[in-house]
């Protein structure tokens, strides 16, 4: 038995067709994602029973098929030892693209959406946890609402696992991204398996807490479920077209608190879980996160738009955590308020959150980076060390940060230009690009505070998909996966040529072997 397990892990087993099992991190991730999405679809279908049984059956069926395919597929692939940075970075991009295709297929197969572009937009919005929708929310069934929120929940989980478990583990020792202190990261993610388990437990536990809190605040079970999934994942999907404008102070207060935690991320949850909440206050990232929340709230309250503190805080928290719930049409506020919200959206959530944006930590380090460069200009001999949580950062980390920021801003800038070219006004294009890359969603004018895409042209919608993907998938992964696709054709050709050469040599050898040999004595 042990021997068979070892053989299976080592890839010694064979397909029914005689092909060997495949060792691939990308395929492992993909089959696991398919399984989870299948289970979510089954769950959506079951929840939808009694509302629209046609939808419920369709989702249940689709879910069963996906689950079976996922589980069967998972048995045919195994994790090869020692994933390389290249394979993980490339795999992440491919995985995300495949998941979007899969979710879009479910939308099309169940008949929820009939147009391919809308299905892709909806799938991308869900998986990237961006609060925009092409669906007419009041008309869709319960199963669709839960499925939509479920996709954002899966997308949020995948984002966290990739960004705080997989990438740092793989890049450990080469270019460990800065999350918090290295000790705190190692405490949460000592190794791949434990880290994944802890992240899933924290994320799942937080989701459950959100759902229960919403139930306690008076929401219906379906509303609580959908909002709970959307809050934990910072997806921002609501069961109402007017989002939280339809609810009273109780659900809003729960949402505000839950969004603050969701935006703060898993390190906060882990610290609280381990009873070290006081130590967390030493985190410069957390302090800046709260400073941004307070600062933006003050600007909104004093901005002359007649906003109360609770409403202002809700709006700021929703945007800072890149969730995208709304209680007011904030896009028509005064320019100071909208400007403050644009900066808040651009900065986004903390690094261990499912939210998006350039992230609070990177924003802080960028300021430090700017200070360092300014200091170097003023005093060329000065040795300036940038610190995070009292730990010095090496120049390589800061250079990586600089590279990331340039890539991020380039994507936003190009996105804004292209969106303007696709029919949006320039301010709306800029806002929409920032919002999409930060996986927020809502933006002034075309999209609005409630994230409806009816007024957005088809090219602009597809551009938004690309921008959402760029915001969710690490930019490095996106570029690497594009490079992989381009290289694939070249390498396939090379392999084919090598194979034909080998075959020719083999045949030639056989011919030689068959020829009668002449003995030395004649």
């Amino acid at each position, binding site marked *: 038995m042990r021997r068979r397990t070892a053989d299976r892990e080592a890839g010694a087993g064979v397909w029914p067709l005689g092909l060997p099992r495949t060792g691939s991190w990308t395929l492992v991730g993909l089959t696991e994602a398919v399984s989870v999405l299948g289970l979510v679809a089954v769950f959506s279908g079951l929840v939808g029973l009694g509302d629209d049984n046609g939808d419920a059956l369709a989702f249940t069926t689709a879910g069963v098929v996906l689950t079976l395919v996922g589980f069967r597929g998972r048995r045919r692939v195994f994790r090869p030892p020692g994933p390389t940075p290249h394979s993980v970075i490339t795999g992440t991009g491919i995985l995300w693209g495949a998941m979007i295709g899969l979710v879009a297929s479910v939308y099309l197969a169940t008949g929820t959406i009939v147009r391919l572009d809308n299905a892709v937009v909806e799938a991308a919005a869900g998986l990237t946890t961006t609060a925009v929708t092409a669906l007419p929310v009041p008309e869709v069934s319960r199963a669709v609402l839960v499925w939509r929120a479920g996709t954002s929940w899966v997308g949020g989980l995948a984002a966290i696992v990739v960004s705080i478990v997989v990438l740092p583990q793989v890049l450990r020792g080469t270019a460990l991204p800065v999350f918090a202190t290295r000790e705190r990261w190692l405490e949460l993610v000592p190794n791949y398996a434990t880290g994944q388990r802890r992240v899933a437990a924290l994320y799942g536990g937080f989701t459950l807490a959100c759902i229960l809190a919403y139930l306690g605040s008076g929401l219906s079970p379906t509303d609580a479920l959908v909002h709970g999934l959307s809050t934990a994942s910072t997806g921002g999907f609501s069961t109402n077209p007017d989002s939280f404008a339809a609810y009273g102070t109780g659900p809003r207060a729960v949402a505000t608190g839950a969004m603050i935690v969701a935006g703060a991320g898993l390190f906060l949850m882990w610290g609280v879980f381990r009873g070290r909440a006081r130590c967390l206050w030493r985190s410069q990232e957390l302090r800046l996160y709260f400073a941004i929340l307070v600062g933006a709230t003050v600007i909104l309250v004093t901005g002359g738009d007649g906003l109360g503190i609770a409403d202002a805080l809700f709006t700021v928290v929703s945007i800072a955590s890149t969730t995208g719930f709304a209680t007011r049409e904030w896009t028509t506020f005064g320019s100071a308020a909208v400007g403050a919200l644009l900066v808040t959206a651009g900065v986004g959530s903390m690094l261990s959150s499912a939210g998006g944006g350039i992230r609070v930590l990177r924003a802080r380090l960028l300021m430090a980076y700017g200070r360092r460069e300014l200091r170097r200009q003023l005093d060329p001999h000065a*040795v300036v060390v940038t610190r995070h949580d009292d730990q010095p950062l090496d120049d390589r980390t800061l250079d990586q940060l600089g590279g990331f920021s340039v890539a991020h801003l380039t994507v936003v800038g190009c996105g804004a230009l292209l969106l303007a070219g696709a029919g949006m006004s320039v301010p709306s294009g800029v806002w929409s690009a920032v919002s999409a890359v930060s996986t927020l969603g809502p933006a002034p004018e075309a999209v609005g505070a409630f994230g409806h895409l009816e007024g957005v042209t088809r090219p602009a919608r597809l551009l938004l998909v690309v921008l959402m993907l760029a915001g969710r998938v690490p930019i490095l992964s996106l570029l690497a996966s594009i490079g992989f696709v381009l290289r694939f054709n070249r390498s396939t050709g090379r392999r084919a040529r090598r194979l034909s050469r080998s075959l020719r040599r083999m045949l030639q050898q056989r011919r030689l072997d068959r020829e009668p040999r002449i003995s030395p004595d004649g």
Partner: protein
Amino acid sequence: MHVIVVGAGEVGSYVAHRLSREGHDIALVDLDTDRLLDMGGELDVLTVTGSGTHPSTLELAGVDRSELMVAVTSDDEVNLVASLIAKQRGVERSIVRIEAPELRGKEAAKLLKVFGADLVIDPDQETAHEILELLEYPGASEVAVMAHGEVIVIGVRLSEQAPLVGRSLSEVAAEHEPDWEFLVGSITRGDQTIIPRGDHRLLADDLVRVVCERRARNRVSKLLGLSRGMPHRVLLLGGGRTAEILARSLAHRGVEVVMVERNPARARQLAEVLNDALVLEGEITDAKLLEEADISRFDVVAALTGEDDANILACLYAKSGGAGETIAVVHRLALLSLLGEAGVDVVLSPRTATANGVLRFVRGDVAAVATFLLGETEVLELEIGPESWADDTLVSELGLPKDVLIGAVVRDGKARIARGRSRLRGRDHVVAFAMPGSVDEVSRLFG
């Protein structure tokens, strides 16, 4: 007493010099034959070439009849092993130089006990401590703190404007009757150092060492023409351990610290560990760098590298550039007397601070010792033993040699400047100025 000194570097050779002059039998061990030849020519010591970690080398140095091992190479491990071998061969006491912070403190105490280290010394730390004491008295050339800080010995070169210049000591004393708060303990004029008497007249450029009570230090500083208080801005040239320790202490006291270090990796390391200090990367003799650092705004510039030439040159540049006080650490003392005239305000050597610790340990019955780079005077802090005949005796009746002067008496933690009419008691601490030849006699007197 037979003493083995392992390491003939700056510290080791100075310790050997001081101990041999006191009549001890010294064996100096080092790997560098040339250096030992030089030392052998200068000092009355036995030189042994070899490693202090080799029992055979130590045998040649006479480890079996030795009473004290002084292991002061710049390598902690060598010092520890030398101490261990010495202890195993029956040497009673051992002094070990340790630089690694990990081998100091409470955690390392057990380890050091295993290696038989009775006294741990760190020249870098001692030097940093000495500079810190000096910085509290800007303008002073030497500062020694005795009797748990109750008595302070300040050495200062008198400027022409100093209120004491041109007056005899009896005139100064008469002015401060009935309670003296300070006493001039020694005067170095040119190459000659004396223990002064009442008729000695103070002249400009005299290096005087004054003992004073802690509470009177501000008034005495003023009288000596010194300003008081820590400087606000300090420039440290060189990024060695001394500079690092100093920068940490100064930054802790709120002083703005700027450091210059030429090694990029070390500069980066310093910038990482010193949160509140600005580290500049470059040569300390780079005039452009010093100009860019705006050298004139610094109250103190301390050159602490291992290169005397660079230290002196940088201090001269700093002085000409308008910096406040300049402090140079020097290792070769040949040009010592010229540095003051050239514009270096204070000259320090790691050897003196270290030697003070060693001498105190060797003498055993001395609570503290202060020796100085210029002049041979020593300041000793001694406790009057309960059986000493000095108990219940007036200072004037002690019959002290001419080159000994009682400066202060500390009773129950309170210091008083000693007068002829002061009566000594058992367990009093006495701070005395003495020339090296009278040190033993003084020790016997109070022991």
